[in-house]
């Protein structure tokens, strides 16, 4: 196993590849943000923040709580997050969208807590001079959020049981 202290020193000089590839804050973020919210999301207010006389195109995405998943009726959903890392990773994703696409502003928010059917779990909005960039960036942000941001979803089924989505095990 070796001496942890000595290995840590070496590690600082040569950080492993997985750490080096992840950009570290602070980022050069323009009008952009990622927020984990305990309160209901407010699409209209978020849209107003994106409104800019320069922009011509706004693409948005909203994820709503569905009344079923893989055939099971769902009554409500409980989202939890690892806040310190979720906010950091979400902000990285928005910053990446600015690097990849010609956009003017981007906002993404994810709800945590107990949500009823039809509640908004996630909102992403991107404004840009041209619609292609707005769509591409909006889709990039939601795909990356779903794949990388440490947020978990516990479904409460009509049967009374619950399940952590993606963990293939009911509790």
């Amino acid at each position, binding site marked *: 196993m070796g001496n942890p202290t000595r290995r840590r020193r070496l590690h600082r000089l040569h950080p492993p590849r997985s750490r080096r590839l992840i950009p570290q804050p602070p980022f050069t973020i323009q009008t952009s943000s990622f927020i984990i919210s305990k309160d209901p999301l407010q699409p209209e207010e978020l849209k107003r923040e994106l409104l800019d006389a320069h922009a011509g195109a706004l693409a948005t995405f909203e994820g709503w709580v569905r009344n079923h998943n893989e055939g099971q009726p769902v009554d409500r959903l409980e989202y939890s997050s690892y806040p310190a890392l979720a906010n950091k*990773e979400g902000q990285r994703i928005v910053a990446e969208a600015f690097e990849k696409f010609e956009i003017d502003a981007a906002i993404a928010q994810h709800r945590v807590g107990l949500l009823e059917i039809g509640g908004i779990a996630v909102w992403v909005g991107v404004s840009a001079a041209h619609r292609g960039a707005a769509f591409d960036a909006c889709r990039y942000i939601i795909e990356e959020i779903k794949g990388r941001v440490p*947020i978990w979803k516990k479904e409460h089924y009509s049967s009374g049981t619950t399940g952590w989505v993606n963990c293939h095990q009911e509790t």
Partner: protein
Amino acid sequence: MKLTIQYFALLKDQRGLDEETIQSSAATANDLYQELAQTHGFTLPTTALKVAVNDDFASWETPLADGDSIVFIPPVAGG
């Protein structure tokens, strides 16, 4: 060395608590998870998990140091 571990989602249910501080001589994040999984009966394999050390993603081979904060991250499911 002293390590702080936070639990989320399925791991939190299986551990029965949010956070604990333990004494461990685990050399890497991977060694630590194997130890804990055996003690507490965690069902998720490391291939299904990611790991964060001091609030950032890290490699399973990250060497641990006294005072580190570790989180094992179950499969995410946002949106």
